[in-house]
């Protein structure tokens, strides 16, 4: 296990390096001189040169990268072009709403998705299976932002049960997490159905039935537990999808989270903030995938030894 974990950990380092270079290059890839972009349209030449020197944009690229990484490792992400505030402060106040939203969405999606998947597999090719499959494929096809707007129209505008946006109370999180979780729920339902069907063809399931175990013991203790490993892995990998989806959902429900910050920063061309957010999302995603890989190794000895 130690060797497998070490291999995985070492594999992540070059990936993080390349991602950091890409994100660093981001500001140089935008057409036009970054100093001019930061200074604004009416800036004088001196002002532009001042910014160039202040940000070290006149240094060779590799030196700029080293400075950038040095700042990054000491926790300095630069200042927002738009407001002049340190980017780290801006991110700090935005983390919690996004985290809450992500975990609530994942929570209900996992429970309901598994339930639909298991029921579909047990009643394969009967009406509960068709209903479950149709629910799953509909959830995959529904545009998240539209679902959010429809929920707002019905439950906030018409019925007045929930607030239309913001994060004032726990009630504010209900509609957004339904919206964000719908896609994941569908994916997990489809995945757990096929995983359950596969597990139920295994010999030990037949053995269980042959020795007279009750059906719910066979399903619950043997089939479900074994396919759970794979389903949880897939769920972990879907966190990236949630990060992307949070951009949409936070925009629809006016939630002051990281996704909303990204959209605002792009609309206002606040490149330092965009850079920091892209780096953060990518790092988070890579680390989650790493954790999922390691967990998978812990749960499944086959993976551990074959590597």
């Amino acid at each position: 296990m130690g060797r497998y974990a070490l291999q995985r950990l070492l594999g992540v380092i070059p990936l993080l390096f390349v991602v950091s270079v890409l994100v660093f290059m981001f500001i140089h890839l935008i057409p036009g001189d970054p100093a001019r972009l930061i200074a604004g349209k009416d800036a004088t030449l001196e002002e532009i040169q001042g910014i160039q020197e202040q940000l070290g944009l006149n240094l060779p690229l590799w030196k700029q990268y080293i400075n950038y990484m040095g700042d990054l490792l000491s926790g300095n992400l630069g200042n927002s072009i738009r407001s002049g505030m340190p980017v780290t402060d801006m991110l700090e106040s935005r983390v919690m709403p996004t985290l809450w939203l992500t975990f609530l969405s994942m929570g209900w999606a996992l429970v309901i998705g598994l339930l639909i998947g298991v029921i579909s597999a047990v009643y394969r090719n009967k009406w509960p299976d068709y209903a479950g499959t149709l629910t799953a494929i509909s959830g995959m096809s529904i545009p998240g932002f539209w679902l959010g707007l429809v929920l707002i129209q019905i439950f906030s505008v018409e019925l007045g049960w929930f607030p239309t946006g913001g994060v004032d109370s726990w009630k504010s999180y209900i509609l957004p997490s339904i919206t964000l979780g719908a896609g994941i729920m569908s994916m997990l339902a489809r995945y757990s159905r096929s995983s359950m069907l596969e597990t139920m063809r295994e010999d030990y399931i037949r053995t269980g039935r042959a020795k007279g175990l009750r059906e719910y013991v066979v399903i619950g203790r043997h089939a479900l537990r074994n396919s759970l490993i794979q389903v949880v892995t897939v769920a972990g990998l879907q966190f990236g999808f949630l990060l992307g989806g949070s951009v949409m959902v936070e925009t629809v429900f006016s939630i002051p989270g990281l996704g909303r910050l990204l959209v605002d920063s792009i609309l206002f061309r606040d490149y330092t903030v965009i850079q920091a957010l892209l780096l953060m999302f990518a790092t988070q995603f890579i680390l989650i995938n790493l954790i999922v890989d390691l967990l998978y190794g812990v749960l499944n000895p086959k993976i551990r030894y074959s590597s």
Partner: protein
Amino acid sequence: MSNNSSVMGAGSPLSEEVLAPAKTKGRFGAFIRKFCKQRMALVATCFIILLFLVGIFGPFLTPYNPDEPNYDALMTGPSAAHWAGTDEYGRDILSRLMDGTRLTLAVSLSAVMIAAVFGTIFGLLSGYYGGWLDRLIMRGSDVLFSFPDLLLAIGIVAILGPGLSNVVIAVAVFGTPSFARIIRSVTLSAKETLFVEAARSMGAKNRRIIWRHIFPETISSIIVNVSMKIGGAILAAASLSFLGMGAKTTEPDWGAMLSMGRDYLSIAPHIVYFPGIAIFLTVLAFNLVGDGLRDALDPKTKN
């Protein structure tokens, strides 16, 4: 003896044809039979054909001029005259939806096709040649995979600027690595088959082996993956338009229409409902067809 000599004629097209796996009408017929058994996929196919017809002949079919404002009928709900109601300028929503069909299909199809072409080339090269080329391509796709789909697209649009053509590029970029991985794995197994070995032993060049022998083996995977990806591409493009990074608000793009209607949600929800239903049904149809094709073409997922 004459038969023998033709097989020995190294590299001649005929001899390779003899050794290549038989692709008869039987295989295609079996596919059609299997696909037609799935009623949902069949219904969805009909719906998609209808969409294409609307996309092609849309301008001749719309009941009203999609761009013409009518200030006597601002934001009216669905009625006999306007089946899907009118928007904030009094334009007929059904006409705008029909007009926008072409835009939706063009954007999503071109993005997925670009991704398929590049992904297939990368996958074939990576799987066939292996070595440093394989490592380079696969590490490259790892890097792209380390950004969540929609965020990668948003990042690309932030660099290139808003607009539908940039949306196509962004959606194509995040679609490419998954094609590359799938085609690579098919290539790896096709490389080990006897007919490839036979072709090689007869002195066929690498390029010829890749295109004449391995590429045909990947076609069914490509078709399945294209059909599975179109729905996602439509959703991604609509999302970008909704965020104001895609279509201009003057264009009859479904995502942009939704985004405009958002401001009138409490007084005229139908402006939001209908474009959303159009997106939903279209994506659903493509996903159902994708599932149907996968079940009919991929023997591994028969259940």
